[in-house]
């Protein structure tokens, strides 16, 4: 009898978190619609989606990675590395499409590096991915230097910005399409593929996963590769939208990604969490940032707000789980 009650309670606790997030989301939305004059406009909504799209794309893969009990702090640096690399290669005369493929492949290699350090050499994820974070950032500066400056802004081919500035139906930027596709793919991976199932198993009981013959190293490396490749893709889209590459792009992105994931109810210890929760978390962050922008709040207060949101999310998470 007690078992039945607590089982239902456990399942409910996951949903409670999502309902709370949804309520917060609706609350912010209604408040901003009434209070901020420029909020309720398609242009502004597109803006918000563009802001969260990078986070959602990377966090889609990183969410599954965190469900295995691992995480990646190098995403911001890998994003910057690929942005610069893409600008550099195309400036050297490589065709745009070839450069995009090459850069995504190199981003995936950063993922292999992370995955091997964590999965094979048993370096803790914090240390391994901080090492990558520094190394990739360093290479980003180095490549800009090869080009002869701090940034790559001039001399890019004519069609460089075409990819990032493509609009669907004349309204929707291509990065939003990418976000929808990536989210859908990971929604599918989480529910319908062995990779998704094994991620929950590894995070839930690593030892049992090993003894069950699950390819733990393979799963971890694959997820790091996916996270790295998506970070690289985001870098390419961003740099081609702006039309110039800066090696300091994506600083602090790793924390935005983790905030969205943790807000969404994925446990830092692994074993539980969901993609839908992450999406809600990312939207809360995006809406809050947009609102603060519309009210003209300065950047550093926005950062402080992020901190408060994260602590609040973790406290809600603890309260919900303790009650269950």
């Amino acid at each position, binding site marked *: 009898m007690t078992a039945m009650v607590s089982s239902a309670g456990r399942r409910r606790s996951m949903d409670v978190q999502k309902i709370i997030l949804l309520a917060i989301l609706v609350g912010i939305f209604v408040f901003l619609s009434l209070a901020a004059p420029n909020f309720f406009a398609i242009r502004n909504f597109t803006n918000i989606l563009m802001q969260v799209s990078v986070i959602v794309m990377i966090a889609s893969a990183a969410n599954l990675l965190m469900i295995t009990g691992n995480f990646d702090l190098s995403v911001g640096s890998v994003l910057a590395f690929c942005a610069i690399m893409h600008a550099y290669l195309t400036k050297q005369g490589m065709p745009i499409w070839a450069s995009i493929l090459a850069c995504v492949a190199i981003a995936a290699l950063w993922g292999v590096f992370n995955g091997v350090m964590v999965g094979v050499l048993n370096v803790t994820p914090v240390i391994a991915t901080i090492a990558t974070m520094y190394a990739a950032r360093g290479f980003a500066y180095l490549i800009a230097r090869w080009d002869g400056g701090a940034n790559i802004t001039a001399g890019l081919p004519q069609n460089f910005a075409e990819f990032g500035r493509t609009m669907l139906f004349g309204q929707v930027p291509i990065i939003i399409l990418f976000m929808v596709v990536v989210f859908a793919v990971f929604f599918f991976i989480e529910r319908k593929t062995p990779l*998704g199932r094994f991620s929950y198993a590894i995070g839930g009981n690593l030892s049992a996963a090993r003894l069950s013959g699950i390819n733990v190293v393979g799963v971890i490396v694959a997820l790091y590769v996916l996270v790295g490749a998506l970070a690289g893709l985001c870098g390419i889209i961003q740099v081609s939208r702006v039309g110039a590459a800066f090696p300091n792009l994506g600083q602090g992105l790793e924390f935005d990604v983790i905030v969205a994931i943790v807000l969404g109810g994925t446990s830092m210890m692994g074993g539980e969490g969901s993609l839908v929760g992450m999406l809600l978390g990312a939207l809360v962050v995006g809406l809050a940032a947009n609102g603060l922008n519309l009210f003209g709040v300065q950047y550093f207060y926005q950062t402080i707000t992020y901190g408060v949101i994260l602590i609040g999310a973790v406290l809600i998470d603890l309260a919900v789980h303790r009650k269950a």
Partner: protein
Amino acid sequence: MSDEILVEVRNLQKHFPGVRALDGVSFCIRRNTVHCIVGENGSGKSTFIKTLTGAHQRTAGEILLGGRPFEPRSVGAAIGSGISVLYQELNVVDDLTVQENLTLGKEQSLLGFVRKPRGLEAVKEILLSLDPSIHLGDMVGCLSVAQKQVIEIAKAVSTNCSLLIMDEPTAALSEQEVGRLFAIIRKLKERGITVIYISHKLAEVFEIGDVVTVLRDGQVVDTLQVAEISRACRDVPESCLRIVRLMLGKVVVETYVPRPSTGPARTLLEARNINNTKLRGVSFELAEGEILGFYGLVGSGKTEVARVLYGIDEYEGEILVKGARRDLRGVRCALGAGFAMVPEERRADGIFAGLSVRENIPMMRIGSILAKGLLSRGKENALADRYIASMSIAVRDREQKVALLSGGNQQKVVISKCLNREAEILLMDEPTRGVDVGAKHEIHEIIRSLASKGRGIIVFTSEMPEVLHLCDRIVLMHEGQVGEIVANGSPAANSDHIMSVVAGGR
């Protein structure tokens, strides 16, 4: 004098939900003796110690310390009454010096700075008398386990302890170090300290003990004078078995029913001369449709054999599966060679507690629920329902989380997960540990029916009734070696003979 009683335990009870860990324990510990407590795993040794030291609160019963009722509310209270424990996990700080460890928690400060503590001289003197090779300035991290134990002992003795409890102190010691530890225990006795010595190694009991109490299933089987037993042992070697038999209990064996043999069976598995750090020259064979049992006391190496076969531990030697030599390096390798294992530690190594029964069962062969490379909910549901029915797993529905099932039902989920692998050789390490009688019977039936379908099954167990009831042949392990392989049903397969082999190697 030495006849004075220090601790008297009267009808001590400690109940946990569903388990009577201590069920009416009564005995006396005389002052200035080394009192050994022996028993297999789960006999209640640790619970007794925890109840005596205030870590657990007793359910019922009385403890008299020096003739007065003793009810420690906490470990601190027990220390205050002169009871100290030397746990298996040593409580020393590696990054501090010997001196700092000795006075840890007793520092006196002046304006935030540590002053040279009082009472240091006394501890120093005790340490010196126990082991002169330890210097106060040494970093504890550089010392051996045995030396760290000495530091803990010195600390305990310096707090005016009159009763020192040692919980399997020799588990991590070399033979030489054990000898030195025994010398220290004798010195402690000279100082008038009473020692409770917990072990499951009989040889140690004979060497250091004065009195031995045998616990089994939370009850005292008997309390004996060691001198008497060893005299009896010298006169009649057979009576050495008496204490072993006391430890393991009266063996009630349901009769073994030989299963009808279907002609000469093929050899499924052959292990030749397996060696590693824990095993010496282990060889055996397993035929198709056979249930082979591995039996031995704690530390005899039976779990290590399972770990080698499942690719977890490294080994030297040859393993042939159906006549072909296989290199079992890594679990996935062993799975590929046709092994599957039900692990000993169900919670730590078996179940995915946060996932549902439905999600647990296909984990060892995800292919069984794939359709065109994707998880098929229909197949998954059908698979789960099939195992829930055939193993009679008691669940509300297949979506129930495994964490919420009883031990027996969790074990059935682990076995289902393993069966779904459809491996030819099943390794089952303590398949019925912590499982109630009904479920145990069902699991035995499942094992028999699998064997009759031609699978080879190896059961690793520390329960003699289980091997005698279930297994066709029994490998008796002793100190990492195969003592003897007996066919069940033969005259050699009797509990006395088995005990003498697992206890003495012969």
